[in-house]
């Protein structure tokens, strides 16, 4: 049996004597006998070596694909060696939330740098220390826009399904009304949007790029939203922010998204990183931890958790949210990723994604029977329409250890191309797709 107890039999005996009891069980005399458990019905403990074998066997039952052309909320990117190495340092990994600032300056400064990077990327004034994931960030982002007379949110355009469902879960408990307005390939009918918005609209939520990779005229939408007195919440893919107009430049009040593309592995969906940023005006409404800069009693620069009057451990049932943690290690990962790539490296990642995805889309379109759903601009995801062929194409690719795009229905596939692909690998995919269509 395994355990991590560092006491000897003799230690235990001595300690029981000191306490003045005869056995370990005597310490549990407060627990009523009738509810005590005889024995857990689970397997016996195992040696480390055996457990290692069990877990390796489990891991080996999952297919690790050589080429991945699927995104839809989880993105395969190259993770520089630096990132894993630095973030594995046990001072970071095994530390608690930095309540004790004097011995947590490293973690606090890392979060401060993370917040600064999120502000730089999103063009917003304030970022929190992160929340659970992109979907919960979007839900919290929508909730923080509520005002006394404004309790309705409009979800505009094509939003990732998990994000939409999470927003709905969070909103329903607050009796917040959620309306959805479709937008065909990033085309937003402004008159319809204006009609939908009323004096009760708290915010409009838009994803840029949208679920199908499409790019919206976010600045025009922001203008319309603001003229109705509502807030504009933008959900973003952080890689796209290397190139595309930032939420701040578009006029967003709140920017949210999932930081997974910033150095976190796909890992079957988590842990990821929900980033949240807002304008200075909304600073006291943003949920979650925030690190601030101050000085110590000797005048030296110091970092602390701040603006805690918003938080649950002070305000209890009147807190702005119940969240009491952040994804600190994931935020550190994103900080390390952006730092080691730097200004040029990060832009090059985004450029590679865009160039390769557009090359791939163009090559696909050359195949007879392939149509692109996206007519306007897209980032690194797009949708093909190939009548009745989704299943066959994806099967043919899987045979070649390629994870194709996500099947939306029998005709449509949502593809994603990142810098992990090469021209050669994409050309190979094109050949397989062509083969699957014509035969």
């Amino acid at each position, binding site marked *: 049996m395994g355990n991590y107890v560092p006491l000897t039999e003799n230690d235990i005996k001595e300690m029981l004597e000191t306490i003045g009891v005869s056995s370990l069980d005597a310490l549990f005399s407060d627990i009523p006998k009738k509810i005590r458990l005889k024995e857990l019905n689970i397997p016996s403990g195992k040696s480390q070596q055996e457990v290692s074998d069990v877990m390796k066997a489990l891991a080996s039952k999952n297919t690790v694909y050589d080429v991945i052309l699927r995104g839809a909320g989880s993105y395969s990117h190259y993770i520089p060696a630096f990132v894993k190495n630095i973030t594995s340092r046990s001072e970071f990994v095994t530390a608690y939330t930095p309540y004790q600032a004097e011995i947590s300056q490293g973690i606090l400064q*890392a979060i401060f740098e993370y917040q600064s990077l999120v502000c730089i990327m999103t063009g917003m004034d304030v970022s929190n220390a992160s929340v659970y994931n992109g979907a919960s960030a979007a839900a919290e982002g929508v909730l923080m826009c509520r005002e006394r007379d404004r309790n309705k949110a409009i979800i505009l355009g094509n939003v990732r399904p998990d994000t939409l469902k999470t927003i709905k879960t969070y909103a329903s408990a607050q009796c917040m009304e959620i309306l959805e307005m479709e937008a065909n390939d990033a085309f937003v009918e402004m008159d319809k949007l204006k009609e939908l918005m009323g004096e009760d609209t708290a915010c409009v939520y838009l994803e840029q790029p949208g679920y199908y990779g499409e790019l919206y005229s976010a600045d025009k939408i922001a203008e319309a939203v603001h003229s109705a007195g509502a807030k504009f919440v933008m959900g973003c893919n952080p890689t796209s922010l290397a190139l595309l107009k930032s939420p701040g430049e578009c006029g967003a009040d709140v920017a949210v998204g999932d930081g997974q593309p910033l150095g976190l592995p796909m890992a079957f969906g988590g842990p990821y990183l929900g980033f949240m940023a807002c304008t200075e005006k909304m600073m006291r409404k943003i949920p979650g931890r925030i690190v601030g800069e101050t000085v110590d009693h000797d005048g030296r620069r110091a970092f602390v958790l701040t603006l805690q009057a918003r938080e649950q451990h002070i305000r209890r049932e009147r807190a702005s949210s119940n969240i009491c943690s952040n994804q600190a290690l994931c935020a550190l990962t994103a900080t390390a990723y952006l730092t080691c790539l730097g200004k040029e490296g990060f832009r090059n990642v985004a450029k590679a994604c865009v160039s390769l995805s557009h090359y791939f889309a163009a090559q696909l379109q050359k195949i007879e029977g392939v149509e692109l759903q996206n007519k306007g601009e897209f980032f690194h995801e797009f949708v093909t329409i190939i009548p009745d062929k989704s299943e066959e194409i994806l099967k043919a690719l899987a045979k070649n250890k390629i994870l194709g795009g996500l099947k939306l229905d029998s005709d449509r596939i949502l593809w994603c191309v990142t810098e992990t692909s090469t021209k050669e690998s994409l050309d190979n995919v094109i050949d397989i797709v062509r083969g699957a269509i014509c035969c």
Partner: protein
Amino acid sequence: MLLIFEKSQEGKKGVDVRKPEVKEYSYSSELLRSDLDLPEVSEVDAVRHFTELSKRAFGVDDGFYPLGSCTMKYNPKINEEVASLKGFTDIHPLQPEEDAQGALEGIYMLSQLLSEITGMDAVSLQPAAGAHGEYTGLRLISSYHKSRGDIKRNKIIVPDSAHGTNPASATMAGFEVINVKSNEEKGVDLDELRAVVGEDTAALMLTNPTTLGLFEKNIVEIAEIVHNAGGLLYYDGANLNAVMGIVRPGDMGFDVVHLNLHKTFSTPHGGGGPGSGPVGCKMELAPYLPNPSVVKYGDEYFFVNDPDSIGKVGSFYGNFLVYVRALTYILTLGKEGIPYSAKIAVLNANYLKKKLQDIYTTEKKRHCMHEFVLSLEKLKEETGVSAMDVAKSMIDYKMHPPTMYFPMIVHEALMFEPTETENKETLDSVADLLRKLHEMAYSDPAVLKSAPHSTVISRPDEVTAARKPIVRYKKP
């Protein structure tokens, strides 16, 4: 120490990626952003920067970490190794179920193990943290009552000793909060409870052992009172480490429970996250668990969605790599190691308490569970040295302070949770230190009041931080 932005120099390059062998695609200018001002540093500069940051942090690997209610136990290295296997890290959450059988099997196995450990019928691993688990659990309770047409039940009862997340989660989940005072023994006051339960009671949220580190002896009666009134019982799993494998929430009468895998099941805290807060429940509430759940048919595993589910509480399936670590841990400990670890956690806490209880105020008549609370009210009155001063002084002796000023019902509280992974020598040295600090409070209080003295900063000015917030770097 400079910020990474202050170390940046134009033209310095870090890591780069492959240049694609295809034509560069360019967007029209109205889509493009202005300059993106990320730091420019070389790889070695970045390594030195983050290494220096790590030296200004303190983890369980660095020393004693008795944070009460946080269960800062050792985070086994095998867990980290397993969580970095390519078969776990490099799989897409939307790859076909048949290509992710190992992942689904892992989810299924851990859910089953946690069901047995908690005495629940079903478990969802989706919540990403304890508070997230609370929220999810309360939503199940809300759906359960609504499905029975019992729409008046909009109140959650919370003891005044509860974690702040309990009332905050209840509000977020759409409930009203009723706070109840504790009795003299700092447990739930049964008369008070009887007075507040009724047709509007949705549930009582309870931590057991309580936040004072004492087992709630009246738990069976409490469950009866709440159930008889038509309400449910919610178990905050923050303190499960004391009783895992010894008594199960399900057998105490709880209907819904959340666990903190980052506390009880040894996954690392990571400086504040990622954690994992699975939710378990009795059969009647299982249909409302977040979608999807994993089922087994024959030898195969599948995702299924329940139409009655509360829906999604986040992306995909929760913090997968965190629960892979917890699974590794539970397989290692097994049916013997789990209760044994709980017993040693309780032994360690009682041992340390015993060595301090003659000079610090604490509950002496009863054995504590995995943690205990000292009140330094008397010390403060007599010397001016506060709980905070003693806590900060511990830092100078390479120990992390305990939880301070919680629970709120104890004045000048310090809450110690040594966990089962500390050895006797460490506990002896902690006791010696706390006795020495007690003496110093009388002989040399100024040293304690200005502690810590050995850290890179002295106590920070938190008031200015909140009054004039600087929450990001700005280029001068």
